């Protein structure tokens, strides 16, 4: 699995400033260290889905999502994959360690870990895609609680359905924050049509002034 330097820089709010050798080395050191301490693990399951109004119902589970955006996302899907992935608690510990003793490194480690969990999700998505294609399906992009009108409170139920606590150590606290921190839950639609994956994930978000926003197809770092 690859942690992309450019992605790391994007999470650090990089806008083409000059980077000296020491900082460059620090970034590579952090990428290596995250790769070393992360224990990537994931679970997913495939469910038939039913749509009623703005509701998306996952059969054989107690999951009902009330979200227009999600329903639209799964417009053409009659099944979906439900996934959870995490880098494990050691990554939190290491970031916590540095943010107490070497804050600069803590910040860079945090960005590396964010890039890493996204890369893990890309891998899981690829695996789901291969499986889906064998069954004559194509996939949509990932859709996670917190996007659009899909509340992050759903994270709790997703984790329960996937038994993600026992299987990969993933929990949510009372305020629906996932711990370990570098974790993702998501839904991926399975449908019979063309593959429907948005390359520029930022384009569908309303936060136009986000410091992490990629700028269209152009070189993202020139904006």
């Amino acid at each position, binding site marked *: 699995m690859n942690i992309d330097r450019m992605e790391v820089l994007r999470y*650090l*709010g*990089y*806008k083409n*400033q000059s980077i*000296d050798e*020491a*900082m460059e080395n*620090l970034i590579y050191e952090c990428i290596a260290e995250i790769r070393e301490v992360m*224990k990537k693990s994931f679970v997913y*399951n*495939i*469910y*038939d889905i039913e749509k009623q109004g703005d509701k998306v119902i996952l059969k*054989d*589970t*107690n*999951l009902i999502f009330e979200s227009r955006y999600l329903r639209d996302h799964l417009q053409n899907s009659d099944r979906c994959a439900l996934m959870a992935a995490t880098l*494990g*608690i*050691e990554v*939190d*510990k290491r*970031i*916590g*360690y540095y*943010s*107490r*003793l*070497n*804050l*600069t490194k*803590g*910040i*860079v480690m*945090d960005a590396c870990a964010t890039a890493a969990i996204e890369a893990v999700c890309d891998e899981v998505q690829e695996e789901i895609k291969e499986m889906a294609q064998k069954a004559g399906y194509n996939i949509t992009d990932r859709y996670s609680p917190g996007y659009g009108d899909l509340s*992050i*409170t759903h994270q709790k*139920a997703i984790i*329960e*359905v*996937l038994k993600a*606590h*026992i299987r*990969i*150590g993933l*929990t949510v*606290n*009372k*305020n*629906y*924050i996932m*711990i*370990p*921190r570098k974790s993702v839950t998501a839904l991926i639609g399975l449908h019979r049509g063309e593959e429907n994956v948005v390359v520029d994930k930022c384009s569908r978000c309303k936060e136009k002034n986000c410091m992490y926003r990629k700028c269209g197809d152009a070189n993202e770092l020139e904006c």
Partner: protein
Amino acid sequence: MSWNVDFSKFLVFDGAMGTMLQAYGMKAGELSERYNIEKPEVIEKIHKAYIGAGADVITTNTFGANRYKLNDKDLPLEDVIGSAVEIARKAAKDKLVALDIGPLGQLMEPYGSLSFEAAYEAFKEQITVGASAGADLIIIETMSDIYEVRAAILAARENSSLPIICTMTFQEDGRTLTGTDPLTMVNILQNLGIAALGINCSLGPKEMMPLVYEVLKYSRIPVIVQPNAGLPKMVGNETVFEINPEKFAAYGRQMAESGVRLLGGCCGTTPEHIKALKSALAGLKPAKNEIKRITAASSSTCTVVLGGEVKIIGERINPTGKKRLKQALIEGDMDYILREAVDQKDNGAHMLDVNVGLPEIDEKAVMVKVVKEIQGIVNLPLQIDSVRPEVIEAGVRVCNGRPIINSVNGEDKAMESILPIVKKYGCLMVALTLDEKGIPETAEDRLKIAEKIIKKASEYGIPKEDIIVDCLVLTASAQQREVKETIKAVRLVKEKLGVMTTLGVSNVSFGLPARGILNRTFLAAALSAGLDAPIMNPMEADMRDTVRAFNVLWNHDRDSKDYINAYTDIKTKPQSNVNRSSKDLKKIIIDGMKEEVKEVVKELLKEFRGLEIVDNYLIPALDTVGEKYEKGEIFLPQLILSAETVKNAFEVIKEDMMENSSQDKAINKGNIVIATVKGDIHDIGKNIAKILLENYGFRVYDLGKDVAKEKIIEKVKEVKAPLVGLSALMTTTVQSMEETIKALRLHCPDCVVMAGGAVLNENYANMIGADFYVKDARDSVKVAEMVLKGSKNN
């Protein structure tokens, strides 16, 4: 111990509950505990099926019956657990009912939100109900976090008299999800007064085998194994398990032959698996394994075994004679204390002594805080050091591991107060060879006291392997004649009693010049007499070198690996050659050379006063860096690197002021309390604000993350802070921020509030009642400068 359950025979436990419930139509994600109330007949049927299959013990359907998993539901815990025990009791008849306690589903502090104390309360609630409903034993199972297990065991022991069984679940890398290995698990758990321990879930029996052997190698109490029916596999839409009952039973027999006493099944197992297991055990006699006792201390992820290679106990976290540490303890400056812990670890300490004894502070509360902070950052076993029993107990109670208690001595009173704590929490202890009459002059008399303590300890059920004897070092300047009695005593104690030994080595040189020479010479002599674990300063190269050399010469460091590792490139390393002129200080800060800055500031201090350096170098450099950041000429990590450089410069200035008894007044532009609000665990943004505010000379009281509003109010009042900074990163925790602000308005009406965090903006911040919205850490400095201008409150 007298329990109503006979653990000397094989006991067969039941298999999975969830797997069976799914077969009865339970949907994924549903709370299985609901069935205890709504469909008790289904649960009873499953129990009966396992009894019919030959199970000696059935497990109540209460795995997730705790206040965290069952909260917002209309299912009162008492009813759910009470009914579960009742159903099981009915089905079990003369068989045994185990009250099932699963993990709470929350991660523990400091990485999660669950405190040790809250975990204890949640388990206590379950156990009280379950025990009074008539369970025969308690099984704490499928645990990943040994800290959570410790909370559960304490809750079980303090609120019931039932026998306790514990299992943890391991990953393929041989550790639990939170990093505990089998030896560490055994070393912590078997000393906590439980009946059996072992492994369950996660893996199938085949993958579990090597871990089971590891547990059997160390466990002196019965071992339980409850594997899954192999690893889960996806077939179409369904999860299936690959091991059939016959194979499962064959593995079970193999485990039983190796010494496992209690067997059952976890995910994917059915009554057929249990039936096959039961018949596979027919005619087999429980194996008896001889277990050699070891002397070992543990953190949650690492175990240090004494004997053989010399182990260093770091002594630096002890305020005696250390002004800067004293100040840190009084101010609650945890970062300084953590730095001491980390530096010792990086310099070869295997364990850390923790002593926070100061008359100015609440020693008990500070001990708890410091222990929790250190174990969140450093994975070394701890030695809890205090003269007050209540401080020791509070420290070892929250310790995540198996600590050493420092210390007990030969006085009856000391033994009577400390030994019960050692026993209850399953600790190791340091035994000082002194009594009512003080330290005996002769080695023989010290041996006698060691014998007395060992004898007394055995009456409490503490074996001599859990005792580390300290023959006490006297200072050569005052009691020169007796210095070598200590060496003699170490040799005697080692020969006659065969126990492990420790010594606080550096006492020997007190009051004499060039202490390092005496210390290392004495250390070498003590090591050759049989000293196993010196308490010393690992930062002193002389001492470290002596230990390393000794480990080579005594054949502990095989093939001199560690030694070669440590010294091979000692000559090729460039000497740190900082010879910059003071003019460069600004540039050093802008370039973020955070190590180099210390030497440069030390040089400057020969010429200038601390405050002059702050005003003429640090602040102007910071302003330059800040402007560059705002203009986008540098990005975040570069800004922070400069801030850390300034922080290091400040630290040097602070130490200088302390040594020269404050020729300058302390630098403080005003007090600010900062915190990430309750429920939120993001703290990087807050940490960035903290370092910048400190850089500009504000005294920042950082309460950390997930902080209750009461705590914030208490601190604001205590330090009379005119300004509070609050951080929240999630939409779900902004509400918590709003509540905090409301409470502050009520209790501290004069206090100004600034708020920041990813989800906030100007409007939102106003809406929830903050005085200022700060978009980043630089902004918080501007607000602080404005609010605290002229309102110096010290």
